[in-house]
C-alpha cells in the first residue's frame, strides 16, 4: 500500500505542475488552452529523445543526463508555445481553445506517425531513470523520485506565486478583462500573453518530462485528448486562479479517477465488471456537473490575486458588506 501511495503522490505531483502551468494560462491570463496534452507530449518526447538510449533506425537516443533532458523539455515546449502564440494569440478565447485542441491532436498524430523520431505506435521504451543505480530497491527509488517531484513542485509553486502576485500578474489580469484598455495603458498585450503562454507551456513540458522519467516509457497513447480534460477538471475542481487549488484539484481528481477504477473492480459483481468502465465515466461526469452546480468556484475557490505588495482589504467589498450586515 505504501508503495502505491508513493506512486500515487508522485503522479499527483507531476500532474499538479501541469495544472499550475494551465492556471497561469487560464486562471491568470484567460488563455483557453485546450491543448495541454500537446505540451506534455513535446516535453515528454524531447526528454525521451535526449536522454534515451541510442537505437537503430531512430534519430533519437542521445543518452544525455537527466537535467539536460529536463531543460530540453522545458525549452522545447516553450518554443512550441512561442510558435503557437505568434500564430494564434489574436484569436478570441473559444477559437483559441479549438485551435490548441487541434494542435494537440496534430502533435499526437505526428508522434504516432513519425516512427523515425518517436518510435511511432509503440513509443520509446527503456528510458533511463535518474540516479536509478544509486538505489538498491525499487521502493527506495520511489521515495527518491517522489522527493524530486515534491521539490520541483515546491519551486514551481513559489515561482509562480511570486510573479502572479506582482504587477506582472496584475497586467495579465487586466489583459484578460479588456485588451484594448490594457493596451491604451501602455501594456504590450502580445508580449504578456506570450510570456504567460510560454511559462505555462514550460511547466507542462516539465511535467511531461518528469512523467516520462518516472514511467521510463513514452507512447502517443499517453497523450490523448482525455488527458487535457483531466487536467482541466483538476483546475476547475480546485478553483481556477488559485495555485493551492490547482494542487488540491490534482490530488482529488486523480484520487477519484484511479480510486473509482479500483472501486468498480472491487465492488461490482463479476458479470458487471466489463461495464464498469462506462459506469465509472458516468460517475465522473456526474461529479463534474454536480461540482459545477453546487460549488462553481471549485473546492478552494478563486482567490482575488492582488499584488502581494498591495495592502488593505482584499477581495470583493460587496461580499464583505454582505457578511457584516448578516
Amino acid at each position, binding site marked *: 500500500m505504501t508503495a502505491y501511495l508513493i506512486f500515487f503522490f508522485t503522479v499527483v505531483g507531476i500532474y499538479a505542475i501541469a495544472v499550475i502551468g494551465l492556471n497561469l494560462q487560464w486562471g491568470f491570463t484567460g488563455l483557453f488552452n485546450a491543448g495541454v496534452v500537446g505540451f506534455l507530449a513535446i516535453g515528454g518526447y524531447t526528454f525521451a529523445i535526449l536522454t534515451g538510449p541510442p537505437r537503430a533506425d531512430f534519430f533519437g537516443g542521445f543518452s544525455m543526463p537527466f537535467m539536460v533532458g529536463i531543460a530540453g523539455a522545458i525549452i522545447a515546449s516553450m518554443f512550441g508555445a512561442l510558435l503557437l502564440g505568434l500564430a494564434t494569440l489574436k484569436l478570441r478565447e473559444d477559437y483559441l481553445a479549438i485551435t490548441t485542441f487541434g494542435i494537440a491532436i496534430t502533435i499526437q498524430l505526428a508522434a504516432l506517425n513519425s516512427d523515425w523520431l518517436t518510435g511511432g505506435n509503440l513509443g520509446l521504451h527503456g528510458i533511463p531513470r535518474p540516479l536509478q543505480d544509486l538505489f538498491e530497491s525499487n521502493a527506495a527509488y520511489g521515495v527518491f523520485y517522489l522527493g524530486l517531484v515534491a521539490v520541483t513542485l515546491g519551486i514551481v509553486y513559489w*515561482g509562480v506565486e*511570486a*510573479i502572479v*502576485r*506582482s*504587477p*506582472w*500578474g*496584475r*497586467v495579465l*489580469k*487586466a489583459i484578460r*478583462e*479588456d485588451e*484594448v*484598455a*490594457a*493596451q*491604451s*495603458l*501602455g*501594456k*504590450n*498585450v502580445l508580449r504578456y500573453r506570450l*510570456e504567460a503562454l510560454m*511559462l505555462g507551456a514550460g511547466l507542462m513540458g516539465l511535467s511531461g518530462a518528469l512523467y516520462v522519467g518516472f514511467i521510463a516509457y513514452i507512447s502517443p497513447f499517453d497523450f490523448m485528448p482525455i488527458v487535457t480534460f483531466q487536467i482541466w477538471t483538476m483546475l476547475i475542481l480546485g478553483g481556477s486562479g488559485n495555485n493551492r487549488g490547482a494542487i488540491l484539484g490534482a490530488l482529488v481528481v486523480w484520487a477519484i479517477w484511479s480510486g473509482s477504477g479500483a472501486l468498480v473492480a472491487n465492488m461490482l459483481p463479476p458479470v458487471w465488471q466489463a461495464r464498469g468502465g462506462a459506469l465509472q465515466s458516468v460517475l465522473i461526469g456526474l461529479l463534474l456537473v454536480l461540482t459545477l452546480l453546487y460549488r462553481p468556484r471549485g473546492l478552494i475557490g478563486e482567490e*482575488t490575486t*492582488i*499584488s502581494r*505588495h*498591495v*495592502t*488593505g*482589504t*482584499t*477581495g*470583493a*467589498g*460587496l461580499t464583505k458588506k454582505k457578511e457584516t450586515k448578516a
Partner: protein
Amino acid sequence: MLNARSLSRSFGRLKAVDDVSLSIAQGGITGLIGPNGAGKTTLFNLLAGSLQPDSGEILFQNRPIQQKTPDWRFRHGIARTFQIARPFPNMSVLENVLLAAPAQTGEAFWNGWFRQGRIGAEERRNQDRAHEILEFTTLGRLAHEPAASLSGGQRKLLELARILMTDPKLILLDEPAAGVNPALVETLCEKILALNARGITFLLIEHNMDLIMRLCRPIHVMAQGKMIFEGDGAAVRSDPRVIDAYLGDVM
C-alpha cells in the same frame, strides 16, 4: 508638441476623418468640439494609435509616430481616456488605478523572482498616490470594490483616475464630464488646470460648453470629418457655421 498633418481615415465609403491637420502646442489645453459623428473620437483613435490612418502623418515631438502601437505611444507620453468607459470589471478600483502607474519594475516577470524588495517599495509609493487620486475623484470609499459595480458616472471618474496615475506629457480626454455630476465637474476643471500648470498638455473633447469655454484655448471645431473652424471661445460662440452645425439655437 503634437502635429497631425492631413490625416484621413474612412470606414467603407464614409470618410470619418477627412484631411485633418491639427497642431497642439506644448503646455496648452486644446479643445475639440463638433456635432455627433463629426469624427472627433476617430481622430483621437488615430492620435492614440487605436486606429491606423489611411494617409497623413503624426509627429510627436518632431518624431513620426503613426506606425507605433498604442502601448508604445502611452509609454512615450500620450495617454487617453475612452468616451465609453472601459474599466477592468473584475479588478478592484484600486487595482485599476495601480495598473496605470508608469514604468513598474514588477511588470517584468523575472523581477518577481529577483527584485522583490524594489517592487515592494515601488508598489507602496504607487499605492499612496492611487489613494490620493481616488479620494480626489470621490472613489476613495470604493477602492476595494470591483470596478464592475460602479455606476455609469463613476466609471467615467475611474477612467479619469487612471489617467491621473500616469505621468504623461499629453493627455487626450474624450468627454470626461459626460455623466459626471455638476459639482464634480467643477473639481475636475480645477484639477485639469492644476495639472496643466505642471506642464501637462491636454486635448479635450467635450459637449459641455461651460467647461470648454473655461478651459480651452484654442478650440477646434470638426464637422463631417473636416476641421471647419479654429479660434477662441468667443469666436466659436459667434461663428454661424458652428452655431448651425453644433450649438443650435438653444444656447
